[in-house]
């Protein structure tokens, strides 16, 4: 009977006894994924799934797709212990984690509290390895947590104040790392390895410092080291540089289906590196078995057409961004007159009202998107229609009236408004211009704004100088995505609504100020922005669902009413292409980096290849 549930792929190794049988590979209490309950079908082992990535760096998608986290989200974005057998959080201040007994790394070595301890004491607290003192998330008011090993299977991280970011970060696409395979990694650690061997290894890996060696060999997000034991469903077998990366099943993976079959079903994931421009073409030629990245809504027709020629299936998922395209007036812009205008909420509202979102939706998205402000999607429990509908009517008259009120009543012969200092009201929008959607949308907006007497010019500049230009106030306005996470729950950090990052193009200096704890940038001086920052602070200190929800609502209301970012259309669709043999891929889903981890929360380890094409 055991034979049945062993993957054929491992048969050889099993026969050679280089691998123990399944029962010894699994933890005592593996995570049982009940597919039937999820509305999916339990499947069979086997097969290879090919997918295409745009650059070798993108092997990190496997960490995201694999989505093995200490704690992860389920499809409804509720926390679930995954690698952990269980976890407890007391007021978001004390977190107790329980490990699965008998859980093993992909090389068969046991996964224990020692691995946590190693990472905490020898990596995070090591000045060489973590010169910065660890991630911001680990620090509440600058203080690291206490780390305790409670027993053989239990550990605890505790802070004095609540750390609501802790769990979301563990569950995120780019998770906070708390653990590493200490047995393997110790050979690269100065404290555990003798100097001679260490320098030999450094020589071999061509690094100059032992810390670099350790960092290089222990990188998990971009799993470039094939020897590094992992807890993911698939482990990399190819060392870069390569044009093709092969990931094979982790024989010690901790999940099983209800029939006792070990996940993942699929034996191998093959990632081919192609230039991003031909990913759609290759996908349309049936050269990918599962493709979500590198293809765009604009490619849908072509991909759909391929269904006739190749055994592929194209589904459309919903993107989770707050807005597919948003226009961001730079409140820190260097031009005094314009900065003043942009800080005037009437101007922002007028600009928003002038846009005909319906036309944009029809022209660029086949009417499949939803005209909306830059806010949460209906999928979010925090969603309210008034946020989405704030200032999105196409109302040129009102917009004109608002602008007149704001002191732009004078116009030149062509009907372009004049600034108070007599210049023409000409706005230059900058875009990295990587996708034609941006420029197309801007062409439409140009016409819309012409009707309210604002001339719009489009300028494209390279992405990397974009940021520094925005910081220097040299960008007046830019076009970018809306909120990263449009399906947030109250448990997730509302930082995206407040000036917290230097790459928030509507207020980069304020963001920098926050990010650098006041050492760089400028403090926000707009009351509404200050209010947002304060609300964020309250959320961070709060440990109660209701309070957090209330804070979220307030922030959303301010953000949308103030039109800090002019959202255009959201809920746009993302094609997901799969071979028709691939089962269990949901037809509808939410597509985004954070929090859904692209395909991650839909558990690609439960996808399987059926014999016949469906």
């Amino acid at each position, binding site marked *: 009977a055991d034979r049945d549930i062993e993957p054929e792929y491992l048969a050889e190794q099993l026969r050679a006894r280089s691998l123990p049988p399944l029962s010894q590979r699994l933890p005592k209490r593996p995570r049982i994924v009940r597919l039937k309950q999820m509305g999916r079908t339990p499947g069979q082992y086997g097969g290879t799934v090919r997918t295409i990535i745009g650059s070798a760096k993108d092997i990190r998608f496997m960490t995201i797709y694999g989505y093995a986290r200490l704690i992860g989200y389920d499809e409804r974005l509720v926390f679930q212990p995954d690698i952990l057998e269980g976890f407890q959080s007391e007021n978001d201040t004390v977190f107790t984690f329980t490990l699965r007994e008998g859980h093993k790394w992909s090389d068969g070595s046991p996964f224990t509290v020692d691995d946590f301890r190693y990472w905490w004491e020898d990596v995070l607290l090591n000045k060489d390895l973590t010169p910065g003192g660890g991630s911001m998330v680990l620090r509440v008011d600058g203080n690291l947590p206490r780390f305790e090993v409670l027993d053989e299977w239990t550990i605890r991280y505790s802070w004095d104040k609540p750390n609501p970011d802790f769990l979301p970060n563990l569950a995120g696409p780019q998770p906070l790392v708390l653990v590493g395979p200490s047995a393997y990694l110790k050979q690269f650690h100065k404290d555990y390895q003798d100097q001679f061997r260490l320098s030999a290894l450094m020589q071999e890996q061509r690094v100059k410092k032992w810390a670099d060696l350790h960092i290089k060999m222990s990188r998990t997000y971009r799993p470039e080291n094939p020897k590094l034991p992992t807890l993911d469903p698939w482990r990399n077998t190819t060392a870069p540089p390569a044009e093709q990366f092969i990931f094979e099943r982790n024989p010690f993976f901790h999940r099983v289906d209800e029939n006792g079959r070990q996940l993942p079903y699929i034996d191998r994931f093959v990632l081919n590196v192609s230039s991003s421009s031909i990913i759609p*073409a290759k996908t349309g030629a049936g050269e990918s078995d599962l493709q979500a990245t590198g293809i765009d809504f604009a490619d849908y027709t072509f991909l759909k057409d391929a269904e006739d020629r190749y055994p592929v299936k194209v589904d459309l998922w919903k993107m989770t961004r707050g807005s597919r395209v948003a226009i961001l007036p730079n409140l820190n812009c260097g031009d005094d007159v314009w900065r003043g205008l942009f800080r005037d909420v009437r101007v922002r509202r007028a600009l928003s009202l002038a846009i005909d979102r319906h036309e944009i939706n029809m022209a660029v998205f086949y009417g*499949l998107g939803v005209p909306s402000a830059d806010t949460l999607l209906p999928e979010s429990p925090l969603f309210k229609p008034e946020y989405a509908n704030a200032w999105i009517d196409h109302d040129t008259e009102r917009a004109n009236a608002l602008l007149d009120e704001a002191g732009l009543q004078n116009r030149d012969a062509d009907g372009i408004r004049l600034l108070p200092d007599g210049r023409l009201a000409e706005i230059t929008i900058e875009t990295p211009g990587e996708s*034609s959607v941006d420029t197309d949308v801007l062409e439409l907006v*140009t016409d819309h704004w012409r009707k309210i007497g604002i001339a719009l010019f489009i300028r494209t*500049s390279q992405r990397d100088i974009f940021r520094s230009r925005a910081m220097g106030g*040299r960008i007046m306005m830019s076009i970018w995505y809306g909120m990263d996470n449009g399906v947030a729950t109250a448990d997730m950090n509302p930082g995206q609504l407040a000036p917290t990052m230097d790459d928030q193009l509507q207020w980069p200096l304020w963001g920098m100020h926050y990010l650098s704890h006041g050492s760089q940038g400028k403090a926000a001086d707009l009351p509404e922005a200050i209010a947002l920052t304060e609300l964020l602070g309250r959320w961070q200190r709060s440990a109660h669902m209701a309070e957090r929800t209330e804070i979220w609502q307030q922030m959303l209301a301010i953000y949308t009413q103030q039109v800090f970012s002019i959202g255009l259309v959201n809920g746009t669709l993302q094609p997901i292409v799969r071979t028709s043999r691939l089962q269990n891929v949901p037809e509808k889903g939410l597509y985004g980096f954070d929090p859904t981890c692209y395909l991650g929360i839909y558990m690609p380890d439960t996808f399987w290849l059926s014999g016949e094409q469906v």
Partner: protein
Amino acid sequence: MTAPLPPPGAPLQHYVSTAPFDPMSIEAMTDAQAKIHLASQARLMWWKFKRHKLALASGIFLLVLYGMIIIAEFLAPYNLHTRNVDFIHSPPQRVHLFHDGKFVGPFVYGRQMKLDMESLKRIYTNDRNDVQPLRFFCRGDSYRFWGLIEGNVHLVCPAKDGQMFLLGTDRLGRDVLSRIIYGARISLTIGLIGITISFVLGIVIGGLAGYHGGLFDLLVQRVIEVLQSLPSLPLWMALAAIMPVTWSPILIYFGITIILGMLDWTGLARSVRSKLLSLREEDYVLAAQLMGAKSGRIIGRHLVPGFMSHLIATATISIPGMILGETALSFLGLGLRPPITSWGILLTEARSVSVIAFYPWLLFPMIPVILVILAFNFLGDGLRDAADPYR
């Protein structure tokens, strides 16, 4: 009156021509000959050029084209930016003359669009009942002639409230034909400047180096080596990055073209140089030197003409580079950008497999490119022949 030949092998008789003989007489010139011998060399070349019909036709074609770009606003049925969101990716419409067997003059059938939500395709059908006669010298989209004079007269426009997309529309429902007409402006002008610069530099520097040799040649050679070693793409990237961002894209493109023109002379300079290295040993060069000709003159009047064919061929071959120069850059996210339009941009915008599969009419800008290139080449042929003394 000719000398008779004796039969084969027989002894030759003494023959004396009896025709009247006057050593001072010169054959009379025909009018045509007289005209020719009085003509200047330029005129002679023009006559020779005219004999090459294809070259003549090409020349006229190009003249017309350059004439057209002056009045692009008038010729284009739509404005460059006019969008028709209801007619996105509409295939080309055909111009008909007869409807139901009756002559109605040029017209197009109206179109209906259906969105196929399954494949997200826009499906267009001709409405056979909706006859939309074209209008000529009509009022349509308003424009600013050369950005100065308001106007709205077009050569041809669609029927009132009708559409006419003779070459189809793009992803924003813009008329491809109009965009091609507008695009000609940039495509046929800016690159030419770069070429001119690089040609002048190439010939002058290469010429001097080849003709004089010595230290100057050595120096030029090293400079060429250095410049040739820097591939153009990184240069473009670096230049584009340091150009002031406040410049308009067209100015930047212009600037880059000029700079590149100033760097691009090396290949030509090398071939000029090496050709001159051998040509300068010819006696006629010596003759010119002995007459006291300066190097500029010798290079310009004696050596370069001997090299004209090559120069013409090189120039005509560089034309496509000039027209399509920006495509490579746009590809890398540099160079020209919308809203400025050129044929290269139009093609870059059409850069995806779905275009080839579903909207092949977006590739139409290739046709003017090809035509212009052919025309320049045939023109070059004609010029070559005109300059060729052996014809």
